[in-house]
């Protein structure tokens, strides 16, 4: 048994209409159907944050959202942050501060950091710790990540 539904949504500024399997998560849909593989699959139970995307301007764990639920909504993934081929200020700051080793957590970290800077222009260390507490970095680059977010906030 597999059921499909037609949905319309905006992804990274582009309107799309697609048929989706109702049994698929948004994470699976983004990676396997939209082929936007910047969004990573980690724990798939909402604990690691590797799959963080913005839905209607708010960060969510795409592993805990059904693909059908984005009907009529606006989706932003890590691929949508560049403008005219230029990385955004947070992406640049992550590079400048070497805020990763393997890079697997980076897209999720950057989406959470973006959401933080949208609600708090000048975050403290504690604000950053809180906002990124749902994003795990198994390489342990937390110090550099915090510095990158702080630097981005000042740009």
């Amino acid at each position, binding site marked *: 048994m597999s059921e499909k539904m037609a949905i319309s949504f905006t992804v990274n500024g582009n309107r799309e209409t697609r048929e989706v399997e109702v049994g698929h998560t948004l994470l699976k849909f983004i990676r396997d159907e939209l082929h936007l593989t910047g969004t990573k699959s980690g724990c798939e139970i909402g604990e690691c944050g590797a799959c963080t995307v913005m839905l209607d301007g708010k960060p969510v*764990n795409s592993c805990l959202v059904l693909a059908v639920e984005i009907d009529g909504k606006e989706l932003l993934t890590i691929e949508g942050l560049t403008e005219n081929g230029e990385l955004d200020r947070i992406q640049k700051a992550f590079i400048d501060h070497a805020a990763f080793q393997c890079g697997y957590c980076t897209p999720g970290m950057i989406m959470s950091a973006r959401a933080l800077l949208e609600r708090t222009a000048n975050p403290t260390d504690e604000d950053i710790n809180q906002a990124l507490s749902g994003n795990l970095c198994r390489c342990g680059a937390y110090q550099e990540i915090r510095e990158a977010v702080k630097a981005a906030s000042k740009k």
Partner: protein
Amino acid sequence: MLNYSYVKCKDLTQAYDLLEKEEQVYPLAGGTDLIVGMRGGKFAAKIIVDIKDLPELKILEENDQGIVIGAAVTLNEIATFKPIIDHALVLAEGAHTVGSYPIRNRATLAGNICNASPAADTAAPLMVLNAQVKITGSHGKRTVPINEFFVGPGQNVLKKGELVESVLIPRPYPNGTGVYLKASRTGSVDLATVGVAVQSWDNKVQVAVGAVAATPVRAISVEKAVNENGEKDLVRAASLARDDISPITDLRGSREYRYHMAEVLIRRGIEKVMEV
């Protein structure tokens, strides 16, 4: 891939009709427990009824009854709603400790209590605020005090065909302060090993504890000692919580550790709200 039918509900009647007539129907609000549970085999859903965009469940307002929190209101909305911060800070604190910021953009208060985990971080705060759960269904509406809502781990008083419509923080509000204290293995994201809510009402306190019994429970013995018997030794008062709780040993902590942490957090909570 999971196999189920998905229904985006147009109104509440459609939702509780499906819940009443069909089997293995699950309402979807935030989905943060539901989707994990489906994937892990805890919930065998045949039909998912999506209620999250129903306007009547999105209500978050203060009226002459108190503060009304619709079933689809997220925990981040609750933690930043001014009347809750002003009059029910203990609930804002509890809501703020659930999961991570992205989780709280989806997870709802109604989902947190309907999932009925003994460790639910909003349950103990709701208990010390005397919250009321507004339930609706094909047979009408009813109101259940939060203290009577939980039946056991994962079990609540909802009958087939019923949904939580909203939770009310009733007036009069407490005129003292409240606090939620949580012990967990990590600084955030983890479930509570022990969660304690303490609320001051005039010169009395109400205390509720999560993750130490089959349901979240009021620490009645502690309340009685402090409120009625005038116990000033708060270490002794908090130790009476042993009569109210029956923790188990699991991966988050041993039975003895939970007894100990419940006492410690209850004492600290009472000290804080009574400004000892």
